[in-house]
């Protein structure tokens, strides 16, 4: 066994020597060995070092971007603080006009006041339970609508001002119907003169409030 091994070893040495004994064989062998070592160094040393470095640099780039974004956000917030402070009055009005609760009493009082200002008579109003508005599409989900209907007695000259005053309430109002008629002349004169008769005026619409939570329990409200 040992003799066979020795023979094989001698034979291998002889073959290697034969290859290395020529200049061409020596050159090729050294070139191959050099390339193999270079590749090994690249794979085992250069690439891990390079990858580690570039990975960390990429991570740093992301961190820098994140930091810049946070700085931008902080600057924007600081600007918003200034804007808020300089518009405090308007923001207070916004909170008043788009309240965070049902405000039927305001409307009843306003209807009464507007009617009085225009020499009309406020007969009554009814309000529906809160619901998502169908009048305006793509409305913010926090906006809740309350449908209302208000009745007045008015001369024809008062109909447009009455409508305009209610439509332009600072609290958001969407008037979708107005009806006026001398069918039931409140004055009882029955002159059939649309200009002089008292008209029954009905204005229907919806007002809005801001609810950051959920729709409150359905509550109906009537004022007569």
């Amino acid at each position, binding site marked *: 066994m040992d003799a066979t091994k020795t023979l094989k070893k001698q034979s291998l*040495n002889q073959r*290697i*020597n034969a290859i290395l*004994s020529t200049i061409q064989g020596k050159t090729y062998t*050294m070139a191959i*060995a*050099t390339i193999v*070592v*270079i590749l090994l*160094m690249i794979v085992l*040393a*250069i690439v891990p*070092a*390079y990858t*580690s*470095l570039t990975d*960390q*640099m990429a*991570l*740093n780039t992301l*961190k*820098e971007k*994140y*930091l810049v974004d*946070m700085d931008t*956000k*902080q600057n924007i*917030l600081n600007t*918003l603080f200034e804007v808020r402070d300089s518009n405090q009055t308007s*923001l207070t009005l*916004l909170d008043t*006009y*788009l309240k965070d609760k049902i405000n039927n009493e305001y409307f009843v009082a306003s209807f009464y006041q507007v009617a009085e200002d225009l020499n009309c008579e406020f007969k009554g109003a009814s309000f529906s339970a809160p619901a998502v508005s169908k009048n305006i599409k793509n409305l*913010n989900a*926090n906006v809740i609508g309350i449908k209302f209907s208000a009745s007045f007695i008015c001369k*024809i000259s008062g*109909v*447009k001002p009455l*409508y*305009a005053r209610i*439509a*332009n309430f600072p609290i*958001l*109002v*969407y*008037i*979708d*119907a*107005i*009806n*006026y*008629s*001398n*069918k039931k002349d409140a004055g009882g004169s029955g002159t*059939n*003169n*649309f*200009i002089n008769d008292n008209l029954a005026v009905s204005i229907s619409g919806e007002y809005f409030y*801001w609810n*950051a939570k959920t729709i409150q329990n359905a509550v109906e409200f009537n004022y007569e």
Partner: protein
Amino acid sequence: MKKGFNLLKAQAEPPSVWSKMYDWVLGSARIIIIVVEIAVLVAFVFRIIVDLKSKELNKNIEQAESVLNVLHASELKFREIQAKTSTYKMIWDNTPDYSLLISNINSLLPTNTSIKDLTISISGVDIIISGTASKEKEDDIKTLENNLKSNSIYLTGSVLEKLQDTNSQLKFTFKAGLVNIPNKRLSDIKE
């Protein structure tokens, strides 16, 4: 001492595999190892610099995050204000304004007429005007119809229906669609 030339080739033992390997290790391989070591060393130095920068960035990020955490409640409030503001404008600008229509229709109504129970109903994109006139005064209905058709820029597709009731009275209903109804504009409102 006299120097001379030795033209004989030096006689030496042929190099073994191991001696050739040894020569290679001391030659090419050494250069490769040195180059690789330099490259790894440079990478290591850069890595230290990059790590230091990373540490500094982490510190800055931590500081910025703590500031933003403090401002979080204000940020939510700002978002709500922005949503409310845009919603307010959106609702206002998408609400129809019937003021001009009412003025227009009222100006076209007859002042001295036999028409009774005149009712004007504006709803959404439609208008219905109904009333009653005696059969002898049918022309009053025609006059009203002509007024509405020829002098209103807000009405379209108008239809007049007349029905005779039992007391020789004509009940009529004038229906039309509404066009050119402007929306309210927030910019028109004075402070």
